[in-house]
């Protein structure tokens, strides 16, 4: 992942990490995948839960983060925006 990611890129990377793991991911995997420090990742995760882009739940006694429908829509929208931004290059 790019070392100089902006806030939105980090959010998108987190959501994509969850999506690529069939919509659910363990916190330790997310920490590794998002390439963030633990405290920073916690801040992002809390914000994403608050915005209902992801949700935290227990499955088979283990904690997981799940991608919500709103999160899926955000990833799609972000992809479109990125393509538009890339076409203008501004």
């Amino acid at each position, binding site marked *: 992942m790019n070392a100089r990611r*902006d*806030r*939105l890129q980090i959010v998108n990377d987190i959501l994509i990490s969850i999506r690529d793991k069939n919509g659910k991911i363990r916190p330790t995997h997310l920490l590794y995948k998002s390439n963030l420090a633990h405290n920073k990742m916690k801040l992002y995760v809390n914000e994403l839960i608050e915005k209902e882009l992801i949700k935290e739940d227990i499955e088979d006694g283990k904690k997981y983060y799940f991608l919500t429908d709103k999160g899926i829509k955000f990833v799609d*929208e*972000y*992809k*479109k*925006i990125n*393509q*538009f*931004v*890339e*076409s*203008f*290059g*501004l």
Partner: protein
Amino acid sequence: MVSLVFSPIWFFGFDSVFDFISIIITLLIGFYSYKIYKLTGKKSYFYLYIVFLLLGLGLVLKSFANLGMYYDLLHKLGVIDTRLFGYQITALALFTYVLTTLLGYIILVALTLKLQGKRIISLLFLLVFLTILLAKNSFMFFHLISFIIIMFYVMPYFYDNYRKVKTNMAFLVFTCFFLLGASHLLFALVFYSTQFYVSGVILQMVGYLMLLVNLILVHKQ
């Protein structure tokens, strides 16, 4: 300051339709840029929103002026009894069209050349605007300067971006500005033949259609 541009009589009305299509596209691109700004916080897209809003507003004013000229012609031919509005209003609409379009292009230059500082940008705008204002043939000068701004300062940026990212969408953006620049050259030549006006309006609309295709492609994928 303003010299009125006459399109061929058979083209009256068609130019308004073409301009209307261009207006819709500029507003669509403008609002999508604003959406990007709201989501990402990228200031350059807020300015791009302003650019397209100004270009759209310019086209609205140009259509308004065209409507005035169309009715004026019908009045002269005795088809209708009254004019839609006076010459002054038509001239004012054209003057404001020049003003908003130039402002849009100057902001676009500032964006593509990464110019910093509002004072430099406002100075640039004032110099360009005063040059046009004081020129003998203001309207021709406006289109020539717009042609230079687009072709030599804006379009190369989008060409470089296309070469960098090599996507169809970036090619469409580059083509749009190439066609817009070319349309201004044709508008500048309108005093030699009204056919240049017809080609200019069509080229301008095709240019904006490129941006519409870009927007459709973005949403299709």
